[in-house]
């Protein structure tokens, strides 16, 4: 395989007595779409939380681009190139859609209070760049018609897409999507899949958490499966689909029939 972008090395994550992740090793290659699936409570979101610095792993390490993420603050990890969306939408609800995205774009900017007060050339340039890039991303996600609406007033589907636009604005190398199609109907899911493929075509690496096996099988180059915090399978979609452990995990759990 090609260059390893993210290396999740033997990670165990415990919360008190709960072991959310147990000795998980997972690699993501640059340019691929990796699907991460598993029943409820399998530890998928916890993987994101460990990767983005929300939690420090109890044991193990995460390396991104050859650099250890240990000890990095969350915003430093974002600047290092990992961006994410949230399973439960977490937009800045009192800001407009475009402002939400601009917050992400601002991550790469430098100007601060002095620049803002004096309206320095650099500040004005950065401000324009942020705004233009954010509008582009809203168009790309197909939600530009609501750019100046408060995020809280956006329809649900727009909010989900806005989360992706905001994450893309941080110029990540790895984009982590936590159930971006949750609550979507099949047509909407199809549209989103196409968007994800388009995103990858632009050079982003995508880590996709998804509940719906069928969805994830269609877009992913590779699929990893978690069950009770353990990785039980990792391979091409067809291999994973026919893996007996995976079938057992999915049959054994009363999964939501989506």
């Amino acid at each position, binding site marked *: 395989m090609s260059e390893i972008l993210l290396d999740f090395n033997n990670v165990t994550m415990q919360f008190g007595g709960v072991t959310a992740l147990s000795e998980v090793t997972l690699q993501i290659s640059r340019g691929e779409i990796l699907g991460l699936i598993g029943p409820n409570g399998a530890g998928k979101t916890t993987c994101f939380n460990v990767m983005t610095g929300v939690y420090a792993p109890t044991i193990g390490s995460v390396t991104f681009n050859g650099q250890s993420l240990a000890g990095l603050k969350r*915003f430093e990890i974002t600047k290092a190139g990992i961006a994410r969306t949230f399973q439960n939408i977490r937009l*800045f609800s009192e*800001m*407009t859609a475009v402002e939400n995205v601009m917050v992400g774009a601002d991550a790469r900017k430098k100007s*601060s209070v002095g620049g803002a007060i004096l309206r320095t050339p650099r500040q004005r340039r950065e401000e324009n760049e*942020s705004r233009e890039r954010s509008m582009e991303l809203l168009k790309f996600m197909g939600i530009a018609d609501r750019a100046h609406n408060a995020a809280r*007033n*956006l329809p649900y589907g727009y*909010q989900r897409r806005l989360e992706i636009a905001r994450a893309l604005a941080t110029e990540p190398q790895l984009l982590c999507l936590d159930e971006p199609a949750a609550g979507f109907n099949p047509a909407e899911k199809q549209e989103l899949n196409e968007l994800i493929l388009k995103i990858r075509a632009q050079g982003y690496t995508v880590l996709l958490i998804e509940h719906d096996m069928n969805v994830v099988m269609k877009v992913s180059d590779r699929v990893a499966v978690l069950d009770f915090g353990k990785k039980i399978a990792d391979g091409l979609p067809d291999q994973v689909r026919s893996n007996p452990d995976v079938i057992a995990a999915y049959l054994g759990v009363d999964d939501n029939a989506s």
Partner: protein
Amino acid sequence: MSTIGNAFAPVRDAFDSIGDAFHRMNQWQKYSFYAIVIIALYLAPFWTDIPVIGPIVDTPGTQFSTVLNDQVIIFVLVALGLNVVVGLAGLLDLGYVGFYAVGAYVTAILTSAHGNLPWLLSLPIAVVVSMLFGVILGAPTLRLRGDYLAIVTLGFGEIIRLTAKNMDWLGASRGISNIKKPPSIFGLKFGVIDPKPYYYLGLTLVLIVVFVLHRIEYSRVGRAWVAIREDEDAAELMGVHTFKFKLWAFTIGAAVGGLAGVHYAGKVGFINPDNFPLQLSILFLAAVVLGGSGNMYGAILGGVLVAYVPERLRNFADKRVFVFGVVLVLMMVFRPEGILPKRVGDEHKKRQRSSQNEEVAQ
């Protein structure tokens, strides 16, 4: 929704129609509008001479321009600064009076107690010292969240007051007198009888602060603040250096609070620790919350109301903490966003959002 909440609808509609009309204006009309409003504000001391309106606005017992400067200007300045901390960045600061005191005391020390600097020179120094206090208080505490921050800031306000009360170097309970006045300029004489020059100066300070804060609010910094207020974790995960920007909010808030203190000290010429009680912090906060936390113009309106109404209604001044306490509780129940909350994005244009709100609720 609630009837009391709706009682503010006319206020809001009035401001909305002004806002809508404003948006339709061209550049030239906008500048003229600004000019007219600013001139009208500079003429405020003479509003009492206008027939019909004069008697309505005039304050019984106290000269109108004294109220304008000593109450309204101070509260508006403070509300502007506190709005950055509480309204934009969402940090509950219950000890904001501390910065106001620091500004006043630095001017008092430098121009009277331990120095002979002119007032004007003490101003930048006092602002910088206030900012330093902002950093000193913020650096260790801004890693705390919510309730803890409120308690620590509450303590800060009291520590400043008690330090002043107990240190001879700071004049102890006697306070510091003979604080220098602002320099005469444009034929304005800053004396003890006429409050008008102080008001003109104070209004100028307010306009400068509004200009500066407006620029900061509509920049990367302002966006970072609001993002932190809305969801601190999400903000940090989107690359916002949350600690740095919270510290900036504190520091800028402190600067404006300190500036208000400098202006106050220059006007009264004499300060003592009793001028900076805890309840002032509460009234400052009341101004911001009442007016519309997060909206600069709401904060200004709140500052004007909290400062002016008690002076306008006789016998109200000494009960104002109580009355505003009750008003605040009612506001929290019926209209938590304040009289004049910030409208986000297109909201001022299309107010019929109900159909979309339903979509979100699905």
